[in-house]
């Protein structure tokens, strides 16, 4: 078997999710190559070549791949993917955008958000907002999968010495053009990689009140997350949303503040190791998954907690 893993990166750093995908690849077994497609992405290539267990790093370094648009990436992955038994990408917005396109170009189906490798052709994934876990056997010639990072422990970032090979293929696709980007800048840990997440919901009442959570998060080295209601209301930006249709997190500690615990929210955080819920409604469903529940007004409890952590 030979596996192609699509690296997640921003032309400067190799993102951690790639290491979780490589762990899934190792469970499938076989030679593992990594594709780094970008522009001016040599540091990423070097980082990928150093990862334990990688045989070869394929490099498509060209201006057309600078923003890793789904259309050009789909073309590229379909072009080099034919020689592989498996093609894997992280279940990030980049992976979700490009991989189905590549799969359809290759004429195969795919499985999204895989959390378990049962066999080389059999995989499990959550469905129905995580209320069920389905196991599928794929009969496709090439198994195409996005991997949910929280399902696999990352492989070591060092200890490897892969060969590096340039890819000639340049997609000529021109109907999609990158215009601009507004990326959240923050010194806090990345939401999906943080050991501690402090999340706020509609109970926070407004964006200003989120400052309480950001302050506490900074003290704890934590990331801040939010429910859909808090994002919809404009308290915080969309990249903070945790849930079925937002980010999936599984930190050591998740503190849910003023969040009711709708199934769509639970889908994104119920694999956290320890869950704390602070809610003034003792009937709130979040208490059914919380290891430690505190029935209290968050405007009393959070300042007090902030002093003690």
């Amino acid at each position, binding site marked *: 078997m030979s596996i192609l893993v699509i690296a997640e990166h921003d032309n400067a750093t190799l993102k951690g999710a790639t290491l979780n995908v490589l762990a899934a690849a190792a469970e499938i077994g076989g030679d593992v190559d990594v594709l780094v497609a970008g522009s001016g992405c040599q540091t990423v290539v070097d980082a990928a070549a150093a990862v334990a267990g990688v045989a070869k790093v394929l490099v498509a370094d060209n201006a057309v791949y600078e923003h890793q648009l789904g259309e050009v990436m789909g073309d590229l992955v379909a072009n080099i993917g034919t020689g592989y038994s498996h093609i894997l990408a992280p279940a990030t*917005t980049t992976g979700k*955008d490009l991989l*189905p396109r590549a799969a359809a170009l290759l004429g195969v189906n795919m499985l999204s958000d895989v959390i378990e490798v049962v066999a080389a052709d059999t995989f499990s994934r959550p469905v129905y*907002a995580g209320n*069920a876990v389905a196991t*599928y056997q794929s009969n496709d010639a090439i198994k195409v999968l996005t991997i949910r990072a929280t399902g696999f422990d990352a492989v070591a970032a060092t200890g490897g010495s892969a060969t590096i090979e340039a890819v000639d293929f340049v997609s000529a696709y*021109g109907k*999609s053009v990158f215009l601009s980007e507004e990326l959240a800048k923050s010194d806090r840990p990345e939401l999906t990689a943080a050991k501690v997440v402090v999340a706020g919901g509609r109970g926070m009442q407004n964006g200003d009140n989120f400052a309480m959570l950001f302050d506490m998060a900074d003290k704890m080295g934590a990331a801040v997350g939010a429910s859909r209601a808090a994002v919809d209301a404009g308290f915080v930006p969309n*990249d903070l949303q945790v849930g079925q249709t937002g980010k999936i997190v599984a930190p050591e500690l998740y503190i849910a503040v003023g969040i009711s615990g709708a199934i769509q929210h639970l889908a994104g955080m119920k694999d956290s190791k320890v869950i704390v819920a602070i809610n003034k409604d003792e009937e709130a469903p979040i208490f059914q998954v919380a*290891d430690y529940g505190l029935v209290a007004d968050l405007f009393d409890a959070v300042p007090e907690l902030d002093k003690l952590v």
Partner: protein
Amino acid sequence: MKVLVAVKRVIDYNVKVRVKPDNTDVDLNNVKMAMNPFCEIAVEEAVRLKEKGIASEIVVVSIGPKVAQEQIRTSMALGADRGILIETEDKLESLTVARLLQAVVEKEEPQLILMGKQTIDSDNNQTGQMLGALTGMAQGTFASDVAIDGDKVKVTREVDGGLRIVTLELPAIVTTDLRLNEPRYATLPNIMKAKRKPLAIMTPADLGVTMESTQTLLKVVPPAERQAGIKVADVAELVEKLKNEAKVL
């Protein structure tokens, strides 16, 4: 400009699905069904484009059993002009759905295709991108804003790091995210009017597509249950537990 919207009949998002005791699938018997919420957002966006005078006709297509007509009628009550049901009882895999939609696109030649980014049953998030591959159209996935500008569409996409704006040549595919709009409710007069709007029914064979399946569902199990936790009396006890019992502080 003609807009094509794809909608799917799925379990209502308020219903907590249960796994069948024999672990063959989830139990959808006597469960409330509805239009996939992301598809509702797609219909709403099409209707708004029509209200702005940008869209001239909204065609809504669904693939599924006969009862999926309900979701097409709902779309028409919200403002779609006509409907197409591709009737099949078969299990639907994304690539087949994309092939069926491709056949509809070739017939209807829409300038814009709106669809949900994912359905809340399979949670796949694949079909729009696959349709993009099959038709060669550009794809604006996870959209929170859509602005038509001549023969192009500017799409603001919700990505992990924040927002990204792309310009796509029309015809193009846009998949909707939650914050694109807030769908309206259908009014009674519009529900009545929708009953008289045209709804064509066809089969996959009519479109020259064979229903293929490449994935075998082996089993479905409930997710791991969390141990029931405890309630703490106050913040001091919470911090004590987190330090000494859970050891996460």
